[in-house]
């Protein structure tokens, strides 16, 4: 187990370096000049643009820039945002709590709604409850979150006046964005749980358990759920990663703080250091969650050995 974890850590570092180089490459190869964008709203002369490029270090040869970027990243220094001139790490850490609050709440909602829904649909397969659950899951998966967000604002904030439209702080401001963010992943989890439970229900050990005369509820919890939830953990983990590394659209629609909104602004403005910082953060989150999920696998099902 320990050897496994050590190897995972080494691999993770390689993944992070790869992500860094890929981001650097994409940012610098894509057309568009950050200096002109920075001077853009009012216009600038070529001399002004050149002067700014020099100041930002953008006139050095690309390999030099890449080397500098990697060396600094190794020391967790991502430099300053081109625009705000604040350290990238400060910018990220300021936005992370709001994203974590939203993502974890939405994740809890998604799991708390998705798992029971999937189980119900599987147990009453082919009945109206199943149709209802499966039907709503399909709608949930296909509904774009920004549209759902706007719909929730119109219905529950503007029309009914139950919740505020924008901002953060306090549970009332968290409800609408969390629901809007939870619906998609929740629906996905429900469908996955349903098919997974259905598969396990057909297994012989379940039939044996029933034959032993165990109460149905006990069979369900101890034999069916325990085994069918394993694949769900993977998907749920990935969903959490996606939500944590940026609930991009929802943060924008609800005018909340967050890493996702920061990422969009940074990408559109070609704020290289900030984009690199956001990608690094996202990569760390994904790598960590993946490792945790893999370790959870082994803990949940000893039949799986980590090597």
């Amino acid at each position, binding site marked *: 187990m320990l050897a496994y974890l050590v190897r995972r850590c080494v691999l993770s570092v390689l993944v992070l370096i790869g992500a860094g180089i890929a981001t650097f490459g994409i940012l610098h190869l894509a057309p568009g000049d950050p200096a002109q*964008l920075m001077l*853009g709203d009012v216009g600038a002369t070529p001399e002004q643009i050149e002067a700014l490029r020099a100041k930002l270090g953008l006139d050095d040869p690309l390999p030099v820039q890449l080397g500098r970027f990697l060396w600094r990243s190794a020391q967790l220094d991502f430099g300053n945002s081109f625009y705000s001139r604040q350290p990238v790490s400060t910018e990220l850490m300021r936005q992370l709590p709001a994203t974590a609050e939203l993502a974890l709440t939405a994740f809890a909602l998604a799991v708390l709604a998705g798992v029971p829904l999937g189980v119900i649909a599987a147990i009453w397969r082919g009945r109206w409850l199943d149709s209802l659950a499966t039907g709503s899951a399909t709608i949930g998966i296909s509904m774009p979150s920004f549209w759902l967000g706007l719909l929730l604002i119109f219905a529950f904030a503007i029309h009914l006046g139950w919740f505020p439209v924008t901002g953060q702080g306090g549970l009332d401001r968290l409800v609408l964005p969390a629901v809007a963010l939870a619906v998609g992943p929740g629906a996905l989890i429900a469908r996955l749980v349903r098919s997974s439970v259905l598969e396990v229900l057909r297994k012989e050990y379940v039939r044996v358990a029933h034959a032993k005369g165990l109460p149905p509820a006990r069979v369900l919890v101890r034999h069916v759920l325990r085994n069918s939830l394993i694949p769900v*953990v993977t998907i749920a983990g990935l969903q959490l990663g996606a939500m944590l590394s940026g609930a991009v659209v929802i943060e924008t629609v609800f005018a909340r703080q967050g890493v996702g909104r920061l990422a969009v602004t940074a990408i559109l403005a070609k704020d290289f250091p900030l984009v690199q910082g956001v990608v690094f953060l996202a990569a760390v989150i994904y790598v960590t969650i993946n490792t945790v999920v893999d370790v959870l696998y082994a803990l949940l099902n000893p039949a799986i050995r980590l090597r």
Partner: protein
Amino acid sequence: MSDARRNPMSRRGFLQMIGGAAAGGALASTAGPAVRRAAAAAPADTLRYAFASEPPSLDPHNSGSIWTFRSVIPICDTLAFQDAKGKVGPGLAQSWTTSRDGRVWTFKLRPGVTFHDGTPLDAAAVKFTLDRIVELKNAGFGQIAEYESSDVVDPSTVRVTTKKPYAPFLSGLAHGFTSVVSPTAVKKAGQQFGMSPVGSGPFSLKEWVRQDHLTLARNTGYTWAPAGVPASAGGKPVPIVLVRFIPEDATRVGALERDEVDVVENVPAQEVARLSQGGKYRIVRTPQTGAPWHINLNVKKAPTDDVKVRQAIVHAVDQKAIVDTLFFGIGKPAYGPITRQTFGYDPAVETMYKHDPARAKQLLEEAGWKAASDGSREKDGKKLRVVFQVIAAGGYDGVATMVQTQLQSVGIQVELRLLERARMFADANKGEHNLGLKFWLTADPEFLRLHFRSSNIGNWNWSHYSEPSMDAMLDEGAATLDTAKRAKIYGDIQKRIMREALLVPLFDAEYVSALASRVRGVEYDPRTAITLVHASVGG
């Protein structure tokens, strides 16, 4: 299953584990101090203002963002002040004189003004500011590009020299990007000045929570206002202004209707009629100075290298249809390279072209592009086809699609390239387009130099136009201080640009704000600067 029993972890229900951990995390973080409290729960006498975007920095000299421009105006003062009509008058400088050759300006400063940090706003601070703008070479530099040096004559007198006579100099000194800042604060804050600007304006920055809001607190030491600001309409001046950033149009308007904010900017055109009804909100439509929305025609790339093709394109576009259909009548059809509000606007351009598809077809025939049976046009076996580059956001795409249809109806095939902003700039600078869509917000027609002078090819000269005689006219326009002469020069430039069809004017944009009816004293100028000195709510 026996194996599983040995594992302590698996004794817990999975559901309980996953759900419980996540819910616990969420609650913990909700209660955590790191998450800022809601900005919306503000006292009743606070003015709550919603911007569509956040300023990237509040350093007036180190940003090119329109949101920086709008945000720093309440915090910092400028030497001159531009009023709602676009007229430039006294600001921090009470009066000034110009030398006979037009190069030396002597400014007499308003006495007794101090910065928010208590240090005096004197001639040394003005010199420091102007030198800093030139050193940083950011957008503010463009406003005073011909600046050479300044001298402190005495604490209340500063003498500024420009490299050449420079007509837009005063207008540049009335721009938020040339605001006077506290030298002491700049030296103290260093790189962080953009997060904690110190000026002398009616409000000081109290708090900035990134991606959420700015809090501005009234500067009680501020006892004056530029003569160009209309007198207070009464009511108690607001002590606090809260500026929130709400990017999504529907949410921003929703926040106004739900009384979470008092003023919203950039009201979408389709919402204007609805919000105007019922008397709950006041809609302010501010026509802008600078360039209308327009399409630059690239004179270096076939087929728009042929003036007849360019003229045909201008005739084929129906400006009024665009304003009425896409913008519900917000804005005015444009016929020249600068808007009606801009200094030197020459109405003569209005009669040079009109929407006339028949004339467009005739010009294309004369240029040798013969109609084919499928509605397209050909010359020497080649189809008449243009590349139209557009930023795929901000309403540009809708306008472009409509223009595409209008051009196709006279036989011009249009390859529409919807690009991300950075890519659009890069490609337009290289000249990979025939048509490129943009607009320009500024005070003075001097910006035409940026758009049509040969030295700016590869930068903002998207027409890729290079004529020494035009360069000379543009330079003369910038250097002529006599307003009547200057207006005539810009009149000639406008007519020449249209005669050669270097661009297709589309419409003069309007900056639309919606204010709750209890809000008073908020003023807008044609550069979309916001004046809040006399702002009040309620009563």
